[in-house]
Every structure is written in C-alpha cells, then in structure tokens.
C-alpha cells in the first residue's frame, strides 16, 4: 500500500492522497499534530493511558491483596515502609486498593459510554431524520429526562433497583443519554437535506440504511467529543453513588466507597479519605484535559478561539 520510496511521514503528509484510507490517515495525523502542540491535552492523554495501564496490570503492580485484611497494620500513615500511601482501618494497603479500584472505575466508564451515547445517537438521528411528530415526541421525552438533575434521578433509580455496580451503571446511563440525543439531532438536521442524502435516497435506500450508513457517521465526531468530556462526569457520579453506599458495595475497592470509609477518622487519619479522592481527581482531570484538547482540534466551531 505504501510506495517503497516513501517513509511513513511522507505518506501521511502527501498532498495528493491516492486512497480514501490515506486521506483519512493524513487527516488523523494532522489532528494528532495539533493535539500534540497542546501541553495540557498531552498531560490528559498521559493520565488516561496511565489509568488504562494501571488497571490492566493492577495485579502485577500491586504489592498486596486489595481485600485481605491485616489488622496488625491498620491505619499506618503514608510513608510507612511498604505502604507509601498508608493503610486503611482494616490494614489494607491504600495504593493496592487504588490500583484495583482503577479497574472498577474504567469498567463503569466503559459500560456507560458503550450504552448511553448509542441510545442517544439512535434517538437523536431518528428524531432529526424523520422530523414531524416523531421528532416532537422523542424530543419531549429527551427534554423530560434533561429536566432531572442527573444525580438525583440516579439516586431515585438506584433506590428502586437496589444498590450495586450494575444498577449504578444503569442509573448513570439512563440519566446521561439525553445530551447525546440533542447533539445527534442537531447534526442530523444539518445533513438531512444535503444532496448526498438525496442521492442515496434516489438510489432506493430505506430510512434505516440512510440513517445508519450516511447520517450517523456525520454525527460521530460531535458525539465522540461529548463522550470524552462526559467521562469525568461519569466517574464523579459513580464515585458519588459509591460514597453514598448506593454503588459498588464493600469490600470492593471502589474509590468513592473508600472515601466514605475514611470519613470516620478524617481528622486523625486524613490519608484514608484523601488518597482515593486524589485518584478520582487526577483521573477526571485527565479526561477533562484530553476532552478539552480534542474539542479544540476536532471542532473548531466551539473551541472559543
């Protein structure tokens, strides 16, 4: 596919791409170059990559077991040999628990971003493409869900479904699809009357085919930007549910839950509540920095420049 006399770099920078994939790669490469110029975005990317590596290799990196209690070493301060972040009230190493907790966090984020944006994308494109009463009904429903404060609706849902990680994910997903539907609908409205859609329809494509193959891809960039910016919010909501005892249940090392456990001895053993909070903060900051940078690169309209 690459001519032998070209380096990768030259192939990517070619002004006259010979194939569709080359053009696409060149576009991605240019975006990457622009993203690389933004130091804050690169920090965010670094944090995100670190989170992923941490969760994959948690069992290798962690010096102890996240669940097994060791009451002889309870509430050791940070800097104790072998426990650089200290231990909690059951003598478990906090660093170990944070490492394993990154798996739970990443798992929750993945589950939410695999469901909510998809639902929003389908509802938004269908509403925007068909218009008329379908649009009216779907957008009214979206508005109603938007009218709820997210956390409160999630609380009510978890109260009904019962606490637990799957239910927490479900509650977060149910509360976070509406903005995606709005974004997707707006994008659909801009492309729905364009010539290429008319051409596809004249060729006899049905609604499903048009929406799936020709409208949805146009909505993807905006939705992806939203997803990266939303991931921090998902982490914070999940941690909030955990903190209230409605999300992941003990003894699992969920970060919000760990903060809530450390609350009891906040003034004497501050590290128990502080360390997991720091983890939440760093990870969501990472997602936010990355999302912010991505938006500047991919969506020049809203970058505020």
């Amino acid at each position, binding site marked *: 596919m690459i001519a032998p006399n070209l380096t990768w770099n030259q192939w990517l920078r070619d002004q006259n791409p010979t194939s569709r994939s080359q053009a696409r790669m060149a576009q991605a490469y240019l975006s990457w170059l622009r993203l690389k110029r933004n130091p804050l975005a690169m920090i965010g990317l670094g944090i995100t990559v670190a989170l992923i590596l941490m969760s994959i290799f948690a069992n290798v990196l962690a010096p102890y077991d996240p669940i097994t209690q060791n009451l002889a070493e309870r509430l050791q301060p940070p800097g104790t040999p072998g426990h650089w972040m200290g231990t909690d009230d059951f003598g478990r190493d906090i660093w170990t628990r944070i490492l394993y907790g990154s798996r739970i966090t990443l798992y929750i984020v993945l589950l939410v971003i695999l469901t909510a944006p998809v639902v929003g994308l389908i509802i938004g494109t269908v509403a925007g493409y068909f218009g008329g009463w379908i649009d009216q009904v779907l957008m*009214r429903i979206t508005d109603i869900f938007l009218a709820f404060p997210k956390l409160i609706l999630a609380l009510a849902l978890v*109260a009904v479904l019962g606490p637990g990680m799957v239910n927490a994910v479900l509650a977060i997903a149910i509360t976070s699809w509406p903005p995606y539907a709005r974004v997707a609908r707006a994008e659909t409205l801009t492309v729905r009357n364009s010539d290429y859609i008319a051409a596809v329809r004249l060729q006899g494509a049905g609604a499903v085919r048009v929406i799936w193959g020709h409208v949805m891809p146009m909505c993807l960039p905006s939705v992806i930007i939203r997803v990266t910016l939303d991931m921090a919010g998902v982490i914070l909501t999940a941690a909030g549910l955990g903190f209230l005892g409605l999300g992941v249940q003990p003894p699992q090392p969920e970060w919000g839950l760990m903060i809530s456990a450390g609350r009891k001895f906040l003034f004497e053993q501050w590290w128990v509540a*502080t360390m997991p909070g720091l983890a939440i903060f760093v990870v969501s900051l990472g997602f936010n920095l990355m999302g912010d940078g991505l938006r500047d690169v991919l969506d020049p309209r809203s970058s505020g420049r």
Partner: protein
Amino acid sequence: MRPGFVRGAPYFMASIDAPAAPSRLGRILRQVGATLITLLITFVGLLAVTFIISRVVPIDPVMSILGERATEAQIAETRTKLGLDRPLWMQFGIYVNDALHGDLGTSIRTKKPVVAEIARYFPATLELSTLATIIGVIIGIPAGVLAATKPGSLLDQAVRLIGLMGYSMPVFWLGLIGLLLFYGQLGWVSGPGRLDAAFDMTMQFELTQYTGMILIDTALNGQWDMFANAVSHIILPASLLGYLSMAYISRMTRSFMMNELGQEYITTARVKGMPERRVIWVHALKNVMVPLITVVALSYAFLLEGAVLTETIFAWPGLGRYITDALLVADMPAVLGGTVVVGAVYIGINMVSDLLYRLADPRAR
C-alpha cells in the same frame, strides 16, 4: 388595512406606529403562554417518570405502612384507601392531580406529609446554593473576561486549569478536604451544621422564622452574634460549591467574550479611540451578559444537585440530606417527593432563564 390606520385622519397620524405596542405585548404573552404549556407538559412528564419508578419498587407500599402482621381485611382496606385497586392510568391521574394540588404523599419514616417536610428543609438548600452562586458570579465573570482579553497568556492558562480542576473534583471529597484543612487544622471556620449547638434553643424558641434562611432570619431578628456564627458555618460549604460554580461560569464567560471581541462593533469602538477598558467592560460585557443569564441559571440548578453530596458532608439540614436520609431507610414517598421538587425547581429555573433571555436579547424576541 393596518389596524392603526384611522380613516380620514391626516397622513402623519396613520404613520404613528400604534399597533406595535399591543402586538408586542401580544407576542410576549403568547411566548409566556407557550412557555407555560411546555412547563406543564415537562412537569407531567417528570411525574410520569417518578410514577413509573414508584410502581417498579419492589417494596409493597401497603406492607410498609401496616407492617408484616396485617390481616387480609386491613390490607384490602389500605389498598382501597391508597387507590391501588384502580387501573394504572387512573392511579397516575390521581397522582398528577394530587401533585398539582401540592400533595406528594406521606413519608413512611415520619408519617408526615412529604410536602410539609420539604418546605422545612428546602430553605437551607436554597440559602446555600444562592450564596454559592453569588460567589461563583462575583469571581467567575471577571476571571473569564480577563482570560478572554489575553488568550494564551499565563492568566488564561491559570483560569482554564483552575476551571478544569473544579470540573474534576468530587464535591464530597472537596468538602472533606475543606473541613480537614479549614476547620480541623486552621480553625478558621466552624464545623458541620448550620449553627453551634449553643444556639439551638434560641433557634427553636426565640427566633421568628420569616424565611427559614438563617442568615436572613437572624439579621431580621437583630441577633447579630447568631448571624456571625451562621456565617462561620455557611462560608465553607458555600465557598466550595461557589468554586464549582465559578469553574463553569468563568469558562463560559471566556468563550462568550472571545466570540464578542471578534465582532466588528468592537473593532469600530477601538478604532474610534475608546479606552480598551471601556470596550471590554462596558460594550462587550453588556452583550455577554445575555447568554450568561442562561449559564448562571444552569449553574444554580446544578448546585442544587451538588448540594446533595455537600449536605451529607456538612450535616446541612437541606433537601439533599432529606433525600439521602430517606434513601437509607427506603422511604420511597420522601425520595420521590424530593426528586419531584428538585426536578420542578430545575425546570422552573430553566424556564425563567429562557424568558429572561428573550426579554434581554432583542434578537430573540
């Protein structure tokens, strides 16, 4: 013929734009009417969601009222009393009707009407989020404007980073750290609760409660030592929530301001030799204020949500704590009632900001 035209009158009378006034009023009234209808539909939708939630609860409302040892007859009687024997759509109708008449059911935990209880808890939340919004506006708008005037500068980067940090901070953790630092270590502020325990008696028996908001009530009663104590209690949670609100407001102000500074009228003003300070703080800011109405309203609504977690940390007797306390004992009428109220306030704030926006921006009329 135009309705303002008077037959036989001199030409200049006909040219007076008489119909403009009623038609503009009419337009505003139509908009208010349309807004109210949307409001009603959204509110009923909100009730539909809570209704559906309440029907899928695995907890049997009859059992939770009567307990395990009720007889068959008692159960049947209570079912009839609660309207549970009727078709689902009729139950929903009753639910909506009750809600519109200010009845959100009875708390299982306290056996009191949910609405009366919420009325008692709500002022504390309102006080906290109002103060937080004020703090957020006072710091956030100037910070955003300054950042926009020198994009890419150190100040801009700092505002951006501080803002993003606010977006990334779990509010309950921020509360704990704040307590640890400013209460535990430095002793600058008072701890959880709205007042020191020493003021409990005064609060209950001597203070005339005009609004339920302690800062206002103590001031109206002339209880200044109590007022000072209340300030030392509210300042920490309000500042922390204010920080979150500031993060959002400063970011949005920056982006609106950048947009505005690129407009031609700004160039014109500069070319005329107008001082830069006046261009930014008077001309541009005036136009930025219009979209900022929506932003401030949104952050206000968002603080109601942030208050849920903050209140549990600061033992603040507000709506958030009411809901979370009710959650722990599975008091569903209280949870759902609280949800409806927060949702309704949320909708209300959004609608008001929408109306204000239209009134403030001539282009949107």
